[in-house]
């Protein structure tokens, strides 16, 4: 069953077409990743889904019913984790949860129980009576998530929940998302960090400039790329026998050796890394290994001609990838 | 004079606020005289108007302190004193225009009841500088917007009352009169009173000089605040 569905959705802000005939579904129990650069329309799409914005045209269905801003009954079954941290700084964490969960109809002992559970879930139990102005950024993000969870939503919409926080808090949040999914919550997870979406999502929708440019599982999307997988390795005893063994692996298109570095080129989707590593065991073991595998960023690059993360602001020192075809030419 | 130019530009980005703060008070020029007050009512209260106008105009500077823009300014190659000084000049220009309009209107409407209009304008202009310095210094102190607004407005109200802007200090007990002398408002009242009584010009000049000293003092206080 589809928990949610956007059909031919159009939303315009003055001269900007934020959603341009967008279609996608969210299946029950899945984590759907919504990926795209800044300005792609992700936030507009999820605000429309959450009933915060009316569409100019098209339909939204939630839990098999038509969604629009006046549907408070549907909002009861939703949880929204906003991109900005939207908690009251002058109320403690517990009080924040009490307020928001109270508006979802929770009362008395049930409310207290759910608050305690949620605080435990996000790891804020011992800070429950402190006010968020004393929290770190990661803790505020976790509280931001908790405010959307206490009432036990069936569909959780998370809008870039890990922006601007440390890796430890980020990992905690990602782990929490996996746990929620295991408990049966359906999740729409938006981000422009493709590694998060790759790690979490069963299916991905990629948006750019208001359009859906691709959707499917990560494997399906990557498999569409006319790319090859490359593995660069050094073994203890490089020999022709080793090279022959590697060439015999299914999917391998080319094996070259330059100095001590052996490069194995396989067809996209071959996923030959483990087989190559196994082959190396009988030849003095592995000295070094580097995999050059296409990912969602490559998908986006192929489809749009630009990087998922604006190179001007990436600043991570990461070398921007060049994609090459089997004959070594640039894709 | 980049800060000066942009302070003016920011002031005019909010024309409704400018209209409310600078144009509306000009209606006070039409208020009649009241027995017991030396000046027409509107001019009796004009010092308080200038004091609060300065505060309302400088809200954007308060917001700069709160939003962290001061940090960025702190990293720029200009001193806090220069930043505050150029901002003060920009808004002083706006208030000068208001003062000139007020005195001009008053001269037309109130006629001879207004003493020495050019010197009255000078007194209001110098007091404008002082008022702006007070609000600049106060606004630079706070990191929370609401606390800044509330604390400053309460402080200014008390300052206006103690300083004699609302009622003649002659009717107050002597000890309050002594306290009043350490407020800048007292010296505006002194300057205007001197003009009204046709008093010695030296006394008038002294009052202005004291107000200038207050301006410098508040500016220095405001510039000593750490910008980060």
């Amino acid at each position, binding site marked *: 069953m589809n928990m949610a569905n956007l059909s031919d959705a159009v939303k315009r802000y003055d001269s900007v077409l934020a959603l341009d005939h967008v279609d996608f579904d969210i299946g029950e129990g899945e984590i759907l990743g919504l990926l795209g650069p800044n300005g792609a329309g992700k936030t507009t799409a999820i605000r429309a889904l959450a009933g915060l914005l009316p569409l100019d045209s098209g339909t939204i269905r939630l839990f098999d019913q038509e969604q629009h801003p006046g549907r408070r009954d549907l909002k009861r079954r939703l949880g929204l984790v906003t991109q900005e941290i939207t908690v009251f700084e002058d109320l403690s964490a517990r009080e924040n949860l009490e307020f928001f969960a109270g*508006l*979802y109809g929770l009362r008395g002992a049930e409310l207290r129980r759910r608050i305690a559970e949620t605080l435990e879930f996000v790891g804020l139990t011992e800070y429950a009576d402190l006010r968020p102005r004393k929290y770190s950024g990661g803790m505020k993000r976790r509280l931001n998530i908790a405010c959307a969870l206490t009432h036990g939503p069936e569909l959780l919409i998370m809008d870039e929940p890990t922006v601007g926080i440390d890796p430890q808090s980020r990992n905690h949040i990602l782990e929490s998302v996996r746990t929620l999914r295991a408990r049966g919550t359906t999740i729409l997870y938006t981000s422009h960090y493709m590694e998060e979406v790759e790690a979490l999502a069963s299916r991905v929708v990629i948006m750019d400039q208001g359009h859906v440019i691709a959707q499917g599982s990560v494997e399906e999307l990557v498999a569409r790329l006319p790319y090859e997988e490359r593995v660069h390795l050094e073994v203890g005893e490089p020999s022709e026998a080793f090279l022959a063994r590697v060439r015999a692996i299914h999917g391998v298109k080319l094996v070259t050796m330059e100095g001590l570095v052996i490069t194995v080129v396989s067809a996209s989707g071959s996923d030959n890394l483990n087989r190559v590593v196994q082959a190396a065991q009988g030849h003095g073991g592995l000295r070094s290994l580097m995999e050059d595998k296409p990912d969602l960023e490559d998908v986006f690059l192929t489809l749009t001609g630009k990087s998922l993360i604006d190179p001007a602001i990436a600043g991570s020192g990461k070398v921007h990838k060049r994609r090459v075809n089997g004959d070594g030419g640039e894709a | 004079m980049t800060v000066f130019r942009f302070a003016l530009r920011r002031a005019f980005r909010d024309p409704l*606020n400018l209209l409310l703060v600078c144009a509306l008070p000009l209606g006070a020029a039409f208020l009649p005289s009241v027995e017991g007050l030396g000046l027409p009512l509107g001019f009796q209260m004009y010092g308080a108007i200038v004091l609060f106008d300065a505060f309302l105009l400088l809200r954007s500077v308060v917001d700069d302190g709160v939003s962290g823009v001061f940090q960025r300014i702190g990293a720029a190659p200009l001193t806090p004193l220069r930043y505050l000084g150029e901002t003060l000049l920009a808004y002083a220009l706006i208030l000068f225009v208001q003062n000139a309009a007020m005195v001009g209107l008053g001269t037309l409407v109130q006629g001879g009841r207004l003493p020495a209009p050019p010197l009255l304008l000078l007194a209001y202009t110098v007091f404008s500088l002082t008022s702006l310095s007070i609000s600049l210094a106060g606004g630079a102190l706070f990191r929370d917007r609401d606390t800044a607004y*509330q*604390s400053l407005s309460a402080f200014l109200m008390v300052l206006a009352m103690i300083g004699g802007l609302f009622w003649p200090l002659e009717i107050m*007990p002597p000890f309050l009169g002594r306290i009043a002398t350490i407020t800048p408002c007292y010296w505006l009242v002194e300057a205007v009173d001197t003009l009204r009584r046709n008093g010695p010009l030296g006394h008038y000049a002294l009052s202005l000089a004291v107000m200038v000293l207050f301006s410098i003092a508040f500016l220095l206080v405001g510039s000593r605040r750490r910008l980060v």
Partner: protein
Amino acid sequence: MNPVLIVGRTMFIRMLRDLPSLIMLLLVPLVLIAILGSVFSWVPADIPYMRGVASPMAFFAAGFLVMFQLFGGGYSLTYVKGALFSPMRWRLYGLPCSPGAIVLGTVGAATLVSLCQGLLVVLVTGLAFGVDWGSLPLVVLVLLAVTLLSQLFYLTMLLALRNQGTAMTLGWFFAYGSCVAGGLIFPLPVERPFFRFLATYGNPYSLAQTALREGSPQNNPAVATLCLAVLYAAAALFALLAARLAKRKLA
């Protein structure tokens, strides 16, 4: 529990934790009343400022009580702004309650806080400074009327204007302007009919003062009733305006 009550209760707690505002709207008027009431007790009774004033302490107590109630509308402006004109609005719009409930709860809490502050001023001035407030129910009715009007005026300005700073400025003009026009700060030339009207019925401050003054049986309760009716009618008018604007802006 009704969403309005949940929002109201939470906003009430938040407002009570807002120490600067509490100090501003409670301590400052008490200090002003104490100082000015004492100081002006020394002043000759025939000076223009004190003409017709039987008790300077009572004059300043009633004056600053109403003045700071007029300022109290800033609560509604600040907290509605923080809820519905900030990123918080996305979370609140996602809740299964209407934006109207949030506004109503917030304004309700602000009215209650402001009213409590006013009643505390009445209590302290009555006990510590010997101010005779007369009929307490009348005082409560007057305070409630002024507070409601102030909250709804500030709210209407917030909803009507794009710039919240300008809305606050208008609120201050409303509060200060009423007090000046009512004769709290400067004596008005009440020999002129226009200024006499202004000082008795011409603005919220004057209406409140007239209601407080005329409300005792030996004076003119009918006048007090009229003043209260005008204040509540004005509050109702701003309530309607605010509701219309909220429907358009917060949909």
